[in-house]
């Protein structure tokens, strides 16, 4: 029996799939509909300070025929009054006692104001609180959102105001618009937060209209940066989640956000340590219904891999994360082309020739070109296998002869012990000894 239930910093949910605090969680109507379709939890769209929105609010990034691989927005926190939101939150929680309802908060930086909103929020019966320190547009100009997340001291101070009165779990949602995400994460930890949510949206300008020169989205001729999200940001989110997950000082449950559009994305974040995942853009594009595939796909995958709970594989990939200096310099792979599968598009050739290390030859055979890798010169960069449009046509094959291993750090230690300076010549000596030739 596969159990998808999770516990993220004390917030329990039926499955790891939560809706992120965003337009899809703007109202009880939406959140109830989402729960009916299977979403395990929802972070209510941030409530707090009075705001007014503008139009347009979104800009889309399309690539090669695919609509909306990225989206940016200048929408603010909920523009519905606090009372109305709190009432709907408590109704929703009453109707769906088994789903996680988390309320995202953002108010001005005053202790009393925070104390008040936290208490009122707890009264709704919700399962947790998420502190929005991430919103990078509009709210930050008013000293909230990412203006807090970017300064670890503010982050700690406000989180303490919340945790000192909260009786329910508190997650801190971080902005990626910082030079090192670890510091605000540690600040949250120091202030006794129960978990970290990340990432919020990334500062961005989505594009410019070439006919009108107008930056998009345009608000009556004016524009500004917005928060970038969607599939395109996933690699950045994966990295930042891994940073927080690896940090021994932080050591907090993580609710991962950033470009999650299907169960596979979710699995990747869980493998890096996330306890729950939050989705927004994919739902804005296709609706709540996508959760059905997410649940089914995850369940099938777990069954196939022999996992019965999320904890069975959570963080499973984290131990691989290491510094470049500890990577084995002597590991060698080369590209091998399956000639039977090759369709002769020659994209591997031109990529290697112009963009890499010139080690694929084009040999005319029967009116087409045969692409042949000069293995002795292949540096194993894998570019050719990445551009190849045919599945499993180019594979990167390990050609390690011995089980020898030497990392840069080990090598530098040897140099240090032998009192040998690091020069191009001394390095060439090492390379030569191990049959490595740089062309």
């Amino acid at each position: 029996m596969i159990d998808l239930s999770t516990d993220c910093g004390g917030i329990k949910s039926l499955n790891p799939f939560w809706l992120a605090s965003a337009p899809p969680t703007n109202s009880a109507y939406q959140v109830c509909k989402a729960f009916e379709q299977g979403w395990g939890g929802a972070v209510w769209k941030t409530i707090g300070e009075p705001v007014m929105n503008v139009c347009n609010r979104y800009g889309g990034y399309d690539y090669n025929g695919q609509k909306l691989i990225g989206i940016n927005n200048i929408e603010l926190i909920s523009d519905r009054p606090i009372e109305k939101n709190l009432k709907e939150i408590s109704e929703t929680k009453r109707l769906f006692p088994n789903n996680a309802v988390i309320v995202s908060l953002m108010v001005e930086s005053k202790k009393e104001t925070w104390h008040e909103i936290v208490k009122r929020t707890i009264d709704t019966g919700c399962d947790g609180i998420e502190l929005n320190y991430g919103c990078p547009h509009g709210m930050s100009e008013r000293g909230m959102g990412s203006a807090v997340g970017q300064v670890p001291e503010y982050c700690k101070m406000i989180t303490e105001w919340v945790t000192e009165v909260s009786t329910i779990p508190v997650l801190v949602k971080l902005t990626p618009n910082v030079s090192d995400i670890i510091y605000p994460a540690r600040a949250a930890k120091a202030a006794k937060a129960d978990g970290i949510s990340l990432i919020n949206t990334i500062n961005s300008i989505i594009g410019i209209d070439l006919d009108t020169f107008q930056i998009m989205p345009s608000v009556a001729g004016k524009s500004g940066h917005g928060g970038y999200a969607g599939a395109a940001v996933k690699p950045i989110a994966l990295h930042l989640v891994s940073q927080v997950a690896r940090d021994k000082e932080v050591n907090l449950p993580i609710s991962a956000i950033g470009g999650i559009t299907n169960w596979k994305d979710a699995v990747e974040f869980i493998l890096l340590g996330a306890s729950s995942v939050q989705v927004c853009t994919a739902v804005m594009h296709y609706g709540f219904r996508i959760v059905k595939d997410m649940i089914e796909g995850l369940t099938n995958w777990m069954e196939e891999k022999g996992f019965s709970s999320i904890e069975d594989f959570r963080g499973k990939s984290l131990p691989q994360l290491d510094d470049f200096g500890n990577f084995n310099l002597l590991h060698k792979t080369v590209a091998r082309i399956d000639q039977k599968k090759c369709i002769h598009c020659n994209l591997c050739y031109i990529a290697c020739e112009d963009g890499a290390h010139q080690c694929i030859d084009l040999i005319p055979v029967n009116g087409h070109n045969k692409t042949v890798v000069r293995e002795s010169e292949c540096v194993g960069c894998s570019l050719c296998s990445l551009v190849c449009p045919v599945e499993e046509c180019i594979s990167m094959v390990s050609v390690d002869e011995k089980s020898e291993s030497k990392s840069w750090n080990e090598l530098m230690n040897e140099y240090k012990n032998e009192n040998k300076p690091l020069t191009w010549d001394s390095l060439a000596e090492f390379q030569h000894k191990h049959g490595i030739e740089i062309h």
Partner: protein
Amino acid sequence: MKNLAPKLSLKEYENNFAELHPPFTPLTAKAEAERCLYCYDSPCTKSCPTHIDIPAFIKKISTDNLLGSAKTILDSNWVALTCAKACPVEVLCEGACVYNDKGEKPIEIGRLQRYAMDNYFRNSSPNIFTFSKKKNKSVGIIGSGPAGLACSAELTLLGYDVIIYEANKIPGGLNTWGIAPYKTRRQDSLKEIKLIKSLGVKIKTGIKVGETVSVEDIIKKHDAVFLGVGLGKSSELEIPGEELKGVYNAINFIEKVKSENWNSVKVGKRVAIIGAGNTSIDAATEAKRLGAEQVYIIYRRDTSQMSAYDFEFLLAKKDEILFYFNSAPKKIVGKKYVEGIECIKTKLISKGLKDKPKLTVIPKSEFIIPVDMVIKAIGQKSHNNFLNSIKELKMRDGKVVVNKKNYQTGNAKVFAGGDCINGGKEVVNAAYDGKMAAHGIDEYLSN
């Protein structure tokens, strides 16, 4: 004709002759262009007789650089709109697309080329060409079909004064007069002619070289001459009854259809086409689309021997054309009008393994198909008399012999290309010949 097919309404005609491959919309064109893998040293380019840089022009569609896309196409092919619509892409570029090897649908190269060219002509054909310095030499071109047009355009860019002599009232050769209307319309060809004229090419229509003026005069008048005269009269069946009313040749029939005055083209209720080449298919499907109740294609050999492309055969079958294979016409039956065609069954007989099988008639296997119209489509002869009148020009198997490198004939001043040198191929082959001959002429005149 004894029984004419009933006339159709204008709407019915237009429906019947509607384009087989409708144009892309901007969104669908981009989606298809983005599907292109942008192969390097691509098989599609190699298989295009004019070697258009196909991945480059498709990439430009995907980046909204439509003018650049048209420029890439026109750099290689002067009659690119016609080719986009009339080329047998299944056996050329699209047949070579790497997606075929992947087991997926090839890129619709023809339709994408048409998209780029349509856009170019819609935007009143901006001048995107680079002209060499005027050379003060002139070249006379006989025939304004695709070979002559391509040659004239290229020579003009190279700095030559070019005059095309065209026997017909409307120029364009087969592009204007021969391609089935569900592939291209006359207007498409005229757009290309207008573009080529805008470069400075002069076209004199109604000039029958050999009749109106002598070929010697043309050769004397110009520094060089290009022959793009295509093929001549249709071959005869040489069977009794060929003089009956209701017997036509395919070229004339197709020319009439090409006028797009559907109403005025007489077509029988039941029509027999003799021959199974691509022209036969055109004549058959056109007769059917004009309202003929039943159209037959009669061919003395079997499917494996017919020269029509597979996709043309399929089209004919879709149009409910009935095929009589291994049936040789023996006699056209009728008093004054065609009433039927008498055929005799044939088979291939080989005497031994080494012996090439011979087509033999089966005695007493005659049968009559009642028809009102017979269209002969068994090939065309070359303009033998005319071509033989040119001094030093050599002919072989009815084709003008040229040096493959520069398209020069036995007469150093005379060059040739297109159907008159290959016996009848595609528009795209003629377009390539014409262009390459222009460079041959340039080299000849520069020395």
